[in-house]
């Protein structure tokens, strides 16, 4: 190990990144780029009452990620010994890692998980540990395919562990593979992977793309099942998480932290490795770089490439567009790594996430606009169905705040997305039925939870598909809907621009063909001179609203 060099030195190849920025739109402001699924739109926002929030520019990545990883494993944070000291030859070691939902979009090879797992396995090999299992901690997400696992952990690790059955997807419905470790003081059952629970050490490998990720949630959620999840993935919890991106004010995290304690008290030793990445989603150079530039700084080349891209996408069929975008891999760089005791590690991680993502915003707005991109955590290599559109807008983007929501209570949310009535029959079978059966009946989260959740959660066919095919669990679409329940309660109206009217209507939203129409419709609720705030996300950022 190179002991003298600073392991956290950044590469410094680029100009000092600028912080986030709030643009007040005036008559000289250029049209603003809106993501619109797998297309883009340029929208002119009304001058004098609109503002646009831009994310900070990508921070520098670590110059020597491998070195930083080794350093972090040897110098743990909080009450933990270095990893090497925790390894013994006769031990049971389980390495759990984040699944396909992180990061978004998938990053270029080598994936951070591969780098860390290889380092952990090197140490395990040095210590002579034989009994090692690798588990994709996907809770009730769909199983990862072979290709996806290879991408995450690398071919070397895959070929060494998968054929012998030591690298696999977590199975929350395996009656023999799950145990209940106990109950929190709040009466919440803590269900956990039996292999992890019976291991002498669980090493968790995380990529923190948003502040919601990591901490006790990594294991208490990632390695659990419906028995545990139902205690915090519900309407009550989500409405009391303001927001779930802000751990201190999140009932979701409070529950996970309580469960984390139960897991610790049950004797499960966890060595948590958390990493942060910058927001270099589309690259500083290259074909998509224009997407993370500020419009008034576009040069002739940017303009040309944007127009070419926009026109090119317009003529392609949606299936071809989807293919193009799903092949995009982000050139993310690791900005920090910290390992050791869960809570101590997570404090630093969260601070590092905010270092990249935080933008100070003054005051709430009447109308919040957002252009939703082609991807969310649950449609990697898949189809962005209407329920996921709802979840991305009302669940994720709406909740990317600390302090108070960007839009005032009773305000209007306008999202731009084509929202096609399309579903992936393999990945999202229960979503199809949820859309056809549940939403056709009611869109009220409480009603949905009361009337339908149990039936879908315990449905044998969905469980079969979750375990043996590549389907999200039967209850997963409910969680998507709950994710948006805080926003649904807070907002006066939701309008989707350019969406399939039938699909939009099914979700109880209003449909507008242009942003101008949508703003006019919004004026019924918030008046004609309402203030407008546009979040130019992605790249992802968090608003600190005062």
């Amino acid at each position: 190990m190179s002991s003298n060099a600073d392991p956290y030195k950044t590469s410094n190849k680029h100009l000092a990144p600028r912080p986030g920025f709030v643009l007040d739109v005036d008559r000289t402001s250029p049209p603003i780029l809106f993501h619109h699924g797998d297309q883009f739109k340029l929208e002119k926002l009304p001058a004098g009452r609109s503002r646009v929030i831009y994310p900070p520019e990508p921070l520098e990545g670590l110059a020597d990620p491998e070195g930083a990883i080794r350093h972090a494993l040897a110098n743990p944070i909080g009450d933990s010994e270095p990893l090497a000291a925790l390894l013994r030859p006769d031990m049971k070691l389980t390495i759990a890692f984040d699944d396909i939902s992180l990061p978004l979009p998938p990053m270029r090879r080598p994936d951070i998980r591969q780098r860390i797992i290889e380092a952990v396995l090197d140490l395990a090999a040095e210590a002579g540990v034989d009994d090692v299992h690798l588990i994709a901690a996907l809770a009730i997400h769909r199983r990862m395919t072979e290709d996806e696992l290879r991408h995450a952990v690398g071919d070397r690790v895959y070929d060494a562990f998968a054929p012998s059955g030591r690298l696999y997807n977590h199975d929350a419905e395996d009656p023999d593979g799950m145990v209940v470790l106990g109950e929190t003081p709040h009466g919440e059952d803590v269900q956990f992977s039996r292999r992890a629970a019976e291991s002498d050490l669980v090493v968790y490998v995380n990529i923190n793309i948003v502040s919601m990720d990591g901490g006790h949630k990594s294991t208490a959620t990632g390695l659990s099942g419906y028995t545990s999840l139902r205690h915090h993935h519900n309407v009550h919890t989500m409405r009391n998480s303001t927001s779930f991106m802000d751990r201190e004010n999140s009932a979701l995290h409070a529950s996970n932290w309580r469960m984390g304690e139960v897991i610790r008290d049950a004797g499960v030793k966890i060595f948590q490795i958390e990493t942060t990445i910058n927001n270099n989603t589309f690259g500083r150079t290259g074909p998509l770089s224009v997407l993370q530039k500020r419009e008034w700084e576009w040069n002739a080349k940017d303009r040309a490439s944007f127009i070419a891209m926009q026109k090119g996408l317009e003529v392609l069929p949606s299936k071809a567009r989807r293919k193009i975008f799903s092949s995009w891999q982000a050139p993310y760089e690791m900005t920090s790594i910290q390992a050791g005791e869960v809570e101590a590690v997570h404090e630093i991680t969260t601070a590092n996430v905010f270092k990249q993502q935080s933008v100070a915003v003054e005051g709430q707005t009447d109308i919040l606009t957002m252009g939703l991109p082609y991807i969310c955590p649950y449609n990697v290599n898949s189809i962005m169905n209407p329920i996921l559109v709802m979840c991305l807008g009302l669940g994720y983007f709406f909740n990317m705040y600390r302090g108070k929501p960007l839009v005032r209570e009773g305000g209007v949310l306008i999202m731009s997305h084509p929202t096609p009535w399309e579903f992936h029959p393999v990945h999202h079978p229960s979503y199809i039925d949820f859309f056809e059966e549940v939403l056709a009946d009611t869109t009220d989260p409480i009603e949905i939870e009361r009337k339908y959740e149990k039936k879908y959660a315990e449905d044998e066919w969905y469980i079969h598909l979750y375990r043996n095919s590549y389907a999200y669990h039967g209850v997963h679409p409910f969680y998507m809907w709950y994710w948006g329940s805080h926003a649904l309660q807070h907002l006066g109206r939701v309008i989707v621009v350019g969406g399939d009217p039938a699909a939009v209507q099914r979700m109880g939203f209003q449909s507008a063909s242009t942003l101008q129409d949508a703003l006019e419709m919004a004026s019924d609720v918030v008046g004609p001179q309402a203030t407008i705030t546009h979040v130019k996300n992605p790249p992802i950022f968090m608003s600190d609203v005062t």
Partner: protein
Amino acid sequence: MIPQSLAGKRIAITGSTGFLGTALVERLLRSAPDCELVLLVRPGRRGAQRRVDRDILRNDAFDRLRKDLGQKEFAEMAARRITAIGGDVSVDGLGLDDDGRTALASCDIFIHSAASVSFDSPLDDAVEINLLGPVRIAQTLTELGTTPHMVAVSTCYVAGSRRGAAPEEPVNESPFFVNVDWRTEVASARRIRLDVESQSRTPDQLAEFQSKAANELGAAGTPALADKTEQLRTRWINDYMATAGISRASSLGFPDAYAYTKALGEIALAESVGEIPLSIVRPAIIESAVAEPSPGWIRGFRMAEPVIISYARGLLKEFPGVPEGIIDVIPVDYVVAAICSVAARGPQQWPDIVQVASGSQNPLSYGHLVDMVRAWFTENPIYDEHGQPISVPEWSFPGRGRVKKQLERASTMLTRAEKIVGSLPVRGRQAEFGARLAEKSELVERATGYVDLYGAYAECEALYGLDRLLAMWDDLDEADQAAFCFDPRTVDWDYYVPNIHLPSVVKAGRVPMKPPARGGETRPQRLRKQILSPDRHLAAFDLENTLIASNVVASYSWMASRRLSGRDRLRFVLKTMMEAPTLLALDKRDRSDFLRYFYRRYDGAPIDQISEDSAEQFSELILAKSFPAGLRRVRQHRALGHRTLLITGALDFIVEPLKPLFDDIVCAELGQENGTYNGELTAVPPTGEARYQALADYAAEHNLDLRESIAYADSASDLPMLEAVGFPVAVNPETRLASIARKRGWLIEDFQKSPGMHRRLLPLAPPHSPTARGPLEAWR
């Protein structure tokens, strides 16, 4: 006084289940309260008494009487006054038993109104009933040694197609009658039947029926095809006999076989009556009632009605006829009254022939009728299936030839279009379009039939003499005239046609006179509700194109290509594509042969590897190409407590992952040898009739009622299974099944793949990642 004259009389009636007969029975029961009736009906399976109760007394003709008397009283009166006897005029001796003979022997009057009036009845059937029927009655009565007054109902059209006066005279006394011997006609009609019978059994002819059946049903299995072939043969014979009837009739100057056999029947009867006093009543075209038993009362869907409805549907753009020609229509209550009057006044000197017609005294011109029909349907249009009113065409009174030519042209075009659509591999909505074409062409064919048959009537310009009828009318006292009106001069056509007849025609034809109510339940919704009722027992599903858009060839290609790379893959693709047409043809001919032949390809496939690959295929091929609405339907059935059964020709390892969806699976299985499959099926694959058998066996084994069961399938080859259950559902049907399903009113479901999935051109597995390929062995 008619009621008094009939008091205490026993009156035997044939044909009482028919239009005229029902009205006659009703009128005698109501207006001649002291007579008794002996009804000679074909007993059928239920027996004569049940038939009288169900097929006569339940008719709405008796509503009036039932209301007047009260339900109980009515039943009591009917029981007291009606004797039902089983018999059949097409059988020598009338097929009577001893009771029947006794009942008949006691009759004072015998009204014979049974006839084969159907426009397309085969020649020999018409001969047996219309020609020989009256003769048999006369013989039987003679044998019984009784001589009741016989009133035989005939038709004005026995006068043949001619212009000018047609008086109330015996057929063979007309100067225009072509003298033929009725016995010879009977013998030839019978012989033609035998000739056609043998002709239909020649190898060539049978081969043709067989190929037609195969065309219609596809690979539905031998029993279903045999059944269809026999149906086609019988239909062919009947069609031939019907044509023979028309030809023979027109060769002798009659409009159709009905008039021809009735004419000869009159001659034969006059020769056979001996001592029995005979009266003949000849009505013209009988239509709905003016007043008795209720205005507009009609039974059955008869002569002019289908023509009128076809016109209102916009199907008959033209109908042949001369506008100034007379259409000789007479309301049914007038005919009934005339018969009662003839029966009451008793026998007269032969020839006692009474014509009941309107043409000579109160003519309704063809042009005027058409104008009234057109005006009425313009005011009260029929609605099409999309709920839009159909506008009726202007009638231009073309000749019969021109109309026929138009129809023939339409028919040729439709047949051609149908053939093209039928040969395309279309399903679902497109296939339904084909089915609609087939329906249209059938309607056109039927319209052509009407033109053939009724054209002659519309063009007939004979004027039927009414001397006897009017004399009889003048002899009636006032009370009789009021109660038994048969004076054709009293019909007000301008009132009768639009206010009485047409409303009753559309009611009898059950045509939609209102746009479908908005928000109301549509027919598919209603059927779906029946299917998804907890009362059902079993839901059986086909797999391919019913639940998934895939087939055995695709899943084989996927399996076989999963572990191929580079050049081998390409070679495999080319080979498969070259074989495709042969495979398709084989599949069309016989599904189980195809499966046997095709599954040979699994010879040598390692079992372990196949089971591993099947697990992947489940996600990548089966679920990816599944119809989510179809899978949801299976689950709905299960949730309702129905047993769910998958019956498929696909292989067990392919459908294995679908197990949690069904209670049971019946599928094909391959034999095994030393850890590999041997490519031979262990049992007959469940296709065609074997699929039906599998379903029937399953139902029997689990004590389930097929009538309370549902079957889902996509092709005509599944007909045996679909026909076996009470609730068949055609899913994305191909053209043949679409047309059958529409005709039979089955539920048609349109299950689609989830939109947005990219389509793979060839059903190949995605190439395996290179590192993984090492230890895997391709077996093809």
